[in-house]
């Protein structure tokens, strides 16, 4: 058994943070995204938990067990806690601020650029995919028929997408050199992120708390899931 405390504590923190920052409504898509996973966890664990004999009810050849259901609920709770923590992080932390701060803390400009560029490239890639689909459709490719037809249509879409992306990378690499990207100087930070003493204190406490829990777990004082 995994226990309830860990995920419930995380969920409590998530709920408080979401309430204070008023992001509850924006978190709905994250919750919805977990539904397929939660459903599969519930079904598999409830009906197929190995060794469980406390049968609650039967459904044909399958038996739902109390142990399996408890296990499923705990695992599902962990998934929700994890998904919502990610939601709180992404909804309360602008990517630009995160990247700017990482850069200020000395993370290499290449790493920061790759992350930032990837994030900004996603909408552009989506736009390009749309353009290619339109172009292929204009040439008679069926992009809306049966699943089989759609799958067949992926190749003409993926080819130009991948080739285009590779060409882009080559050009962009040279273009970056043209803008002194490889200069050895430390990159100037133009937008320092405000960081108050209470915020710093909370970060330290959270970090130390996490390390403490892991150490206590390894030492056998706390039971690790």
């Amino acid at each position, binding site marked *: 058994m995994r226990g309830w405390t860990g995920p419930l504590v995380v969920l409590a923190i998530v709920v408080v943070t979401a309430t204070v920052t008023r992001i509850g409504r924006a978190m709905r898509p994250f919750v919805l995204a977990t539904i397929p996973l939660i459903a599969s966890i519930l079904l598999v664990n409830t009906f197929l938990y190995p060794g469980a004999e406390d049968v609650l009810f039967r459904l044909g050849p399958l038996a739902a067990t109390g142990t399996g259901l408890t296990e499923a609920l705990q695992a599902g709770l962990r998934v929700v806690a994890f998904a919502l923590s990610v939601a709180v992080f992404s909804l309360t932390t602008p990517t630009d601020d995160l990247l700017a701060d990482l850069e200020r803390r000395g993370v290499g400009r290449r790493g920061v650029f790759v992350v930032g560029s990837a994030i900004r490239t996603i909408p*552009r890639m989506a736009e390009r995919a749309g353009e290619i689909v339109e172009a292929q459709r204009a040439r008679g490719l069926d992009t809306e028929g049966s699943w089989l037809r759609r799958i067949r249509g992926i190749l003409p879409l993926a080819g130009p997408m991948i080739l285009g992306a590779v060409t882009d990378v080559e050009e962009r690499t*040279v273009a970056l050199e043209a803008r002194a990207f490889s200069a050895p100087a430390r990159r100037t930070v133009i937008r320092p992120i405000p960081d108050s003493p209470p915020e710093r204190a909370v970060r330290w406490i959270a970090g130390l708390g996490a390390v403490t829990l892991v150490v206590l777990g390894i030492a056998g004082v706390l039971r690790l899931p």
Partner: protein
Amino acid sequence: MTNTAADRPLEGGLLTLAGVRYQYAGASDWALDGVDLSVEAGRVLAVVGPNDAGKSTLALVASGLAPLAVGGRLEGSVLLGGHETRGLAAHEAAQRCGILFQNPSTQLSGTAHTVWEEVAFGPRNVGLGLAEIVERVEGSLAALRIEHLAPRDPARLSGGQAQLVALASVLALRPRCLALDEPTSQLDPEGTRLVGEAIRRLAGDLGSAILVTEHKTALLERVADTAIALRDGTVVARGTVREVLDDPELVGLGVDPPPAVRLRRALAAAGVPADVRGRALAALTTLDAPGGAEARG
């Protein structure tokens, strides 16, 4: 073909190529073969030629990016403000000679949320102080008269605006030379006009030495002082821009002469008297000038 002394290839320009041969890595042929040219401060050198003549390669070599960033084999000498590019790092060459590519979307960093931040990308890379960055960004935007674009998202600009932002981003590194590789190839007439005006301003106001490769000869006729024609990586004509663009053999290279030259030839071939030809050409020049369309309307 035309070959006059007007270009004086090797006389102490800000950008000088002497006996340059360049071969891409893995290639067996020379993409450039024996190119000599020189561009002085405040002057614009036009480079014309068919596709695959070596125009883009020339821009890369002139900027130092080939071979510093692209690789390959360079023979001869490329001097940026008197410094051999061979001894420079890519980021040092970028501060001596900026290069503008055909497609602004690949030139922009893709990481900035505003045009201001995009233009600041280069100066930040070289670790300049904040005050210097602010001054350079605002100076570059002002030089191209696009200060109003500063708060805009670079991903949501028109082609012409994006190309001007890309140019401003290059200028922010304060290079004395510029290599512009078909800067208007993806632009509509308005975007082309904006870039053309910017090129003249950069040469006139900032004294930049500019090498510009283009297929739009009407634009080159307006912005360039001298010109060379390339074929298979070799300079086959050089002279003032009028001389080179007027060269009847240019058509054989697949280069369309500017409208004024085509009109003059057509009128002459039709036997139109010289005074009428003169008036027609004057009218065409008026139409081609900035604001000409409005004057016509």
